[in-house]
């Protein structure tokens, strides 16, 4: 009881002291893997002296959990900045009126296709959807050429993907709904299921299953496949073509939360994260994120990835299909 009273007394400090305290910290919910985001946030702390209180994407909550947490906290936001590792959930938050418009100076170099015209979110450091394969079990010339080829009989039981309700897999599904239309998209996933596609907990789990030889192929992201390849595992990947239209490239998305406790610190953090140095650091890290800035600093392998052929995606249109695709996929791939 005494501890409780003491705590309440501490919490009931004067407004001025609260404001001073709040200026010195920023709360960020980040969906980018902790392994990569944490060093960057620590550098921001060292450079600015602003304490960063981060909530990371965990296997228990997933990225969609972070977005849902922001929605659940809408009456009293605890988060200042949302660092999403894809775009669509950020757009859902925008539609719900939970974001504040902010156009950072560092965003001007980002191509218009990867930032919100109204300034509610800015993309940077992208990843692509790839087809990862086990180099000991599949030869490059035998790989499927397009996404639709995965439903061929020869790949029955040999393909895996992450649970399509979370993360970039759900983004991918929503993009297919938007580009192909509902009938074709539903048919594709139904054919995948009939072809005994293995559903795993996440992109990294799927990539590990390929690296370990449990599966021959999987749908995953560039960072997961690249990390395992850099560890010397027998895995490689190719950009996943969509019937000749290119691969899906999706950026990280930064947004400022409306009525967050530390808006000024949040703006500073967003400016920092959009700086060329951060994008270069992410490109050079084991996650090999593709910079969106033209002529950005990046290792040769990442520059090679950046030269690939990519889909032109209307993320807002895809976001409009996210609920619809999720409802269907939840029923189709419900965990028994």
């Amino acid at each position, binding site marked *: 009881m005494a501890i*409780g009273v003491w705590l309440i007394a501490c919490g009931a400090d004067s407004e001025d002291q609260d404001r001073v305290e709040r200026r010195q910290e920023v*709360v960020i919910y980040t969906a980018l893997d*902790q*392994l990569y985001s944490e060093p960057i946030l620590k550098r921001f702390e060292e450079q600015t002296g602003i304490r960063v209180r981060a909530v990371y994407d965990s296997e228990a909550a997933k990225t969609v959990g972070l977005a849902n947490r922001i929605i659940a906290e809408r009456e009293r936001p605890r988060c200042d900045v949302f660092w999403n590792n894809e775009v669509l959930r950020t757009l859902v938050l925008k539609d719900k009126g939970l974001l504040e418009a902010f156009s950072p100076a560092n965003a001007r170099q980002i191509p218009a296709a990867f930032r919100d015209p109204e300034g509610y979110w800015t993309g940077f450091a992208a990843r692509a959807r790839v087809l990862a394969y086990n180099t000991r079990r599949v030869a490059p010339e035998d790989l499927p050429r397009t996404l639709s080829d995965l439903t061929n009989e020869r790949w029955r039981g040999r393909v895996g993907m992450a649970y399509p309700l979370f993360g970039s897999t759900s983004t991918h599904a929503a993009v297919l709904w938007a580009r192909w239309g509902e009938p074709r998209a539903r048919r594709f996933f139904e054919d995948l299921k009939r072809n005994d596609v293995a559903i795993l907990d996440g992109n990294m789990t799927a990539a590990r299953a390929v690296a370990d030889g449990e599966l021959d192929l999987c749908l995953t992201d560039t960072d997961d496949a690249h990390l395992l390849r850099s560890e010397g595992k027998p895995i490689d990947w190719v950009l996943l073509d969509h019937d000749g239209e290119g691969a899906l490239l999706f950026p990280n998305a930064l947004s400022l939360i409306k009525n967050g406790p530390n808006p000024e610190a949040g703006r500073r953090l967003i400016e920092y994260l959009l700086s060329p140095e951060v994008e270069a650091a992410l490109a050079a890290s084991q996650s090999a994120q593709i910079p969106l800035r033209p002529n950005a600093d990046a290792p040769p392998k990442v520059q090679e990835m950046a030269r690939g052929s990519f889909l032109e995606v209307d993320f807002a249109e895809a976001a409009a299909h996210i609920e619809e695709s999720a409802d269907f996929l939840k029923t189709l791939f419900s965990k028994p």
Partner: protein
Amino acid sequence: MPVQQTPSRSDSLSSPSVATLPGCAGGTPPPPRARRPRCRCAFRIPHSAFHKAVALCFPLAFVLLVLLPLFSYFFGFAWSPLETLTRTFSSREEIGRLAGILGRTLAIAVGGATLSLILGILAFAAIHSTPRRARNGLWALAAAPLLIPEHFSAIGWIQTAGKAGWLTAAAQRCGIPEEWAPTLLYSLPGCVFVLALHFYPIAMAMVWLGSRTTGAAAVESAATLMPPGRVWVGLLVGWLRPWLAAGWLIVFILCLLDYSVPELLRRHVFSVEIMTAYGVYYDPPRAMGLSLPLVAIGLLAAAALGRLLVRFDWPVFARRGGEWPRLALRWRALFLALGTAVVLAAAGVPAGNFLGRADGWESYRDVLKSSAAQAATSLLSSALAALATAILAVGLALVGLTARYGIASDEDASVGTWSKRFASLYERSMFCLMLAMFALPASVIGMAHIAFWNDPAFGGIKQAFYDSGWMFPLGALTLFLPIAYVTLWARLRQDSRILIDLERMDGDRSLRRRFVLSGPILFGPALLAAVVVFILAMQELHAAVLLLAPGQETLSVRAFTLLHYAPDRLVAAFCLASLATLALGAGGIVGIAAVLRLGLKRWMPYCAFD
């Protein structure tokens, strides 16, 4: 002449009879009070109102911090049950799917409990096959798997018998197909196996406790009439049956509620479904609905466990029980080999695997540099939770004692009657509440606290606490208070006669007297409870994911996250560093406890410590 009644030992939950003194019926005045012997440690706080006020703080804290959040949460369901049930059991297919998941959850719980019991008996038999002098150390060694968080065990086994594991590679070299080990591991039996390896020390402890209640004369007589094997079977299956049943039930509840091992071994169980509903979809009504079957089954198991616990003749630690006969040499060798295999599989395989994979000082350096804050958070939160839990458990137990003995008045018999009823009601209610709390999933406790404290009512005081970073210690207190309380409760059931006699010698109802008489008896169990709570809080994952504030992270949560993204060597190094931190922390608490005990023994030499 006054009528003095000696209370019976058979039912310690009932209050003793009250001594009546001359003068109660009116007429002759009572004799003068006997002089109270002075105790060196005494400081005089005679006021009984103050005594009662201090005593009431503990139940009040329990109600405000623990019961209110839980009741509010379940009251929310009772207020709108239809919405909760329709959101959860929305269609026949969904009900069928959930029934399948529940069946799988029950199968894992039953299998885990049964295998734990078998392994626990094996370990007990193995230790009994060694010379007596070696046994103390071996008990501690056999209990070592409890120090390793179950998700660390799962990680260790994944790195051992997974597709890229060394066991798989070795099996392949011997001509065994490479899918054999991973298929077995990522299956229901694999889940049962890993859980049993973690929880068998609990079953072993129950067998050990039960063995200390065996009557020496009975065992000796049996040993003269029957071969040792038959004596062992008779003791285990006969005398110790309730203890084995209690051990089975405890492990059953723990396996039923476990989250991390099934999640890592890709078995979809109810606790994972609840976490997905709340942590991913933020759908509290659905999460509430999903927790109902789990809570119902857990409460049934807890009720059965309670019926067993109240009937036990709890052994005093000073009492050894009958010495079980030594088995024939071939059996001793067999049990020793099997017991060694169990301990190696439970502790040796994960630890050895981590040591092998950590791959040099660089891994440890990277891990130590990046995880110092998490280690500090884990140690501080766990120590706080352990301290608060032990203090609250002692306070609640002492209130029961006070109600049972201390308010017993020698002037007014009616006060004594009221005391008896109150004491009985209080102790039974507290015991049932604790068992019920033990059966609650950690996710329910986390959700209850979030719903209660993240509330703008009362001028934002509750939300100030919610934002303060103290939520995880509070969640750990709620989760582990039942273990601490039952530990103290079991101890208090042993010495009621001594306390009654001491009460009669010293008629004053002072706080000092309560401390002097009851404190030493509760000291050992309170310290044991604090150490156990510290270890469990360091390992806690489920509630931590829900309750940690932004910017806070514990070693358990970090391990769970790192496992999915970091290279194997970093994961292995991290697990080892975490285990070392836990061992150091636990060792520190045990060291402090030992110093405290020595100090108190010198300070209060008149008091009987055990």
